């Protein structure tokens, strides 16, 4: 565009309002477009983060594995104890024990539902962080008054903080 044309455009007063309205309209479209674009991006980012967290949680839950090294039942004079010895044989650290239940395998009746339990190292000291890292061993004690039915099979069901479940049985 030559300099003369530019000068002419500036000097001409006709259709100025149309030009201005077009500029305003284009500006508004650009602004609204950017707003919608950023909103859409934030929404998709939020969705991605949520999906990512869900997936990470599912993967971590999948990789959790607790092995029951020994489940020992002892019947005392007024109460009974069940000591559960665990090994984290999975590939996830920070495995926590959220709930533990003991139920009669035959009748399906729950005897005890404990939350939370106190995790200890095999040497008897209490775990400060109450979690089992990979290849770590630990145990907890469940106790209640009365006694279990002698000779009956009971199951110990552990639910971890990530939602995985592990079960073992013992005979009273």
């Amino acid at each position, binding site marked *: 565009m030559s300099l003369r044309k530019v000068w002419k455009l500036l000097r001409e007063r006709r259709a100025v309002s149309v030009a201005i309205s*077009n500029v305003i309209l284009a500006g508004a479209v650009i602004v609204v477009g950017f707003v919608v674009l950023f909103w859409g991006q934030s929404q998709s980012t939020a969705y991605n983060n949520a999906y990512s967290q869900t997936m990470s949680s*599912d993967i971590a839950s999948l990789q959790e594995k607790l092995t029951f090294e020994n489940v020992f039942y002892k019947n005392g004079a007024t109460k009974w104890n069940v000591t559960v010895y665990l090994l984290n044989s999975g590939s996830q650290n920070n495995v926590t024990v959220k709930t533990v239940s003991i139920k009669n395998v035959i009748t399906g009746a729950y005897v005890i539902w404990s939350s939370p339990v106190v995790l200890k190292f095999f040497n008897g000291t209490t775990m400060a962080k109450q979690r089992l890292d990979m290849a770590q061993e630990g145990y907890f004690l469940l106790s209640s008054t009365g006694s279990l039915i002698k000779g009956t099979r009971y199951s110990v069901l552990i639910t971890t903080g990530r939602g995985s479940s592990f079960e073992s049985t013992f005979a009273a």
Partner: protein
Amino acid sequence: MKALLRLRRNVEKLTGSSRGFSSVIGTIFMVLLVLTSITGVFLWTLYQNTLYNYAVRGQNQQELDVRNENVVANGNYSVPSPGKVSVIANLTNAGPVTAQIVNLWVFDTSRQTYGFNNSVGNKPWANLSWTTLKAGQVLKFTSNNATKVTVPNANSTDSFSIWFVTARGNTVPLTKSQANTLITAQVSQGIGSVAMDFSSFLYYNVSGNTLLSYPNGGSGYIVNSKGNAIVFKIRLTNFDYPQRRTITLFSFSVLWSLFPQTPQSQRGAPWYIVNVNGNLVENTFNNVTLYYGVPKDVYFSAQSAMPMAGGFKGQSFPQQGIPGTAPVNIALIGEIGSSPYGQNLPFASIYVKS
């Protein structure tokens, strides 16, 4: 040329007119929005699904490894002192995957008490290369490196359930050696509580305190003494069933033989029990302990009961003797549990060359 002119005309027409410009920009934004948001979400979802699939695949592989892990534990146990259980075992990795032993559990079914040994300081597998069993590898816990587990109130007459735990979470029960059981029935109920392994009867010529040709030695059944001191090695096993008491052999335990001196006469000589460390006979003596079911190499050599004044002196067959067959006896003196015990094993014949 014509086409270029037409293109230029079209461009000028497009840029020269502002009509519909906002719609074009709006459309561009909309397309950008769709591309960035939807494509981003789609690709991210795909990526997360791929991660999950990898995790599932890895987990499946781990489950497969757990199922394929096959460690066989064969051995025996003894209770050398109340509350202490000594476990000897051959751990064989019969599976295709490497296995690692992390714990040993002993459950006293008679007293309903239990113990375990997972402490690095107390187990022979403190070095991890000991614990890791490659496919086909055999890990031997012999009487020298038996794993000891503290089980409250455990006694030698109790029954035990013993199992190992692997790092993958499998448990490996200890199965008792069948051969030992058979010998138990024959020996313990018959001629005493100590049995001898006939296949590992060896002798060594001795120079000073050093065992020559150690550890192979020569077959104990044909002895070529040449007038030099010799050491007999005999593998003894305690089969005190069902009490499973520990047998302690004192320094008066002796291997003795009658061998031909001349065609008309025979002569006897004793080989007293000694301690051997590596290929050296020790000048001092500590009682030899035989735990139940645990084979133990026992050495006989000294001219008199150890410790001898002036240090160890080995017994020999006289050089002036004649070749011939000689019966061999082991006279054991010691304790079984806390009671006195003695046993004479007329166990073998040897051919003395000179």
